[in-house]
């Protein structure tokens, strides 16, 4: 297959990621176009814009490149290649928690994984040649943990402690587990957003259990927001007027948008109102919303109270009030 950048051969194409072999060197990070036969063996040549993401020199000349396809390709063009090159020495960035008695603070983070070994980020130094059993905490993989004997082959402790270890599988079954894990991380790393999604799961230092599929999800695990957290909601409308229902205490504020449609907001149980600059300027850019501290309940009554302010473009307060949560 020929292209502007020379002879290239597509080895694998999935989820918009193309792996190709080229005799000519391509520029990392560059956007270019290649002509490739897709799927291989069909004789159909396709010109595809790509962005080169990684490069690996090959023995005997040439380079192996991984690239992102910068267009939408029909799914039927995708194929899973079986070239042995795809399986050799590929290192994948991961973030997997690991444990071992011999490690400082008994723990490490696997930052990079290949078929032969991995790179560990440590809490302290270790010695080259140290052998121990490394326990990998896995999520999403068919095994929850994998306890594999390893040997430290390389140490690095300039500004932080790291080491490289090689796997010493106990038996053929464990060798297969390691290969499967390599396939798993490589496959996941091979798809743009999927990579991010899975890294979010694999890498979360305090991962949550995989959720079942209920129709209703639990509230997010978050810190409680400060009670006076401020929201600035875009409005972009002209204030047309306001009225108050003396029986219910609700304040009704009318706006006109650029399309001359009238919108009315209800501020239930309005307790306080201050008209600042509406006579001078009626163009509202934002609505500032804030929950009043709980202590204000003594003053205004039980329950949550909100302070609202209509702001002009420059931030001037045009109209300010205190009420319950606003309604449409």
């Amino acid at each position, binding site marked *: 297959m020929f292209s502007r950048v020379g002879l290239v051969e597509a080895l694998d194409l999935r989820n918009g990621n193309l792996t190709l072999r080229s005799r000519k060197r391509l520029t990392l990070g560059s956007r270019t176009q290649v002509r490739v036969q897709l799927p291989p063996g069909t004789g159909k040549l396709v010109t595809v814009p790509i962005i080169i993401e990684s490069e690996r020199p090959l023995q005997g000349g040439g380079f192996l490149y991984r690239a992102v396809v910068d267009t939408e390709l029909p799914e039927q063009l995708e194929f899973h290649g079986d070239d042995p090159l795809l399986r050799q020495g590929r290192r994948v960035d991961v973030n997997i928690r690991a444990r071992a008695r011999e490690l400082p603070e008994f723990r490490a983070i696997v930052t990079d994984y290949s078929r032969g070994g991995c790179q560990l980020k440590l809490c302290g130094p270790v010695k080259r040649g140290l052998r121990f059993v490394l326990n990998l905490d896995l999520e999403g993989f068919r095994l929850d943990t994998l306890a594999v004997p390893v040997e430290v082959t390389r140490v690095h402790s300039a500004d932080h402690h790291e080491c490289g270890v090689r796997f010493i599988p106990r038996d053929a079954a464990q060798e297969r587990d390691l290969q499967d894990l390599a396939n798993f991380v490589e496959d996941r790393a091979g798809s*743009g957003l999927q990579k991010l999604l899975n890294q*979010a799961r694999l890498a979360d230092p305090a991962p949550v259990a995989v959720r079942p599929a209920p129709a209703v999800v639990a509230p997010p695990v978050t810190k409680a*927001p400060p009670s006076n957290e401020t929201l600035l*909601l875009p409005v972009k*409308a002209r204030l047309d007027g306001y009225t108050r229902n003396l029986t219910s205490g609700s304040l009704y504020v009318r706006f006109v948008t650029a399309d001359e449609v009238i919108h009315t907001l209800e501020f239930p149980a309005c307790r306080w109102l201050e008209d600042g600059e509406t006579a001078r300027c009626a163009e509202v850019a934002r609505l500032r919303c804030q929950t009043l501290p709980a202590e204000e309940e003594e003053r205004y009554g039980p329950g949550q109270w*909100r302070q609202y302010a209509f702001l002009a473009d420059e931030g001037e307060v045009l109209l300010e009030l205190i009420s319950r*949560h606003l*309604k449409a």
Partner: protein
Amino acid sequence: MQSQVAQMLFRLAWADGQIKQSEVELISELLEQRGVGLAQRLAWMDQGLSAPPASVAMDAPMSEHDRLECMEALVKVCFADSHPQASELALLGDLAVRWGISANQLEQLRRKQ
């Protein structure tokens, strides 16, 4: 349907425990594009963004078109500031699996941003 989409957007915005102004602006824009009027938009956003939602129905929208449209809006919010949080991505992934949206479709939606 619009209310359900709005609730999901709020839920996603809260996934990392805080609401950023870029998320507020984007959600407002997305709701406006979907035909939600100013008053309704302000009322929903005042409720949904002032505190994390207690629980949100995450049932799949009815048609495939609706699901993809909803997911597109969610992807936009997730990537609102180009630095999606792990918790936001995890929620997006959960929804994609639940709604039968493939990694490939999700990737295409992301590239539209």
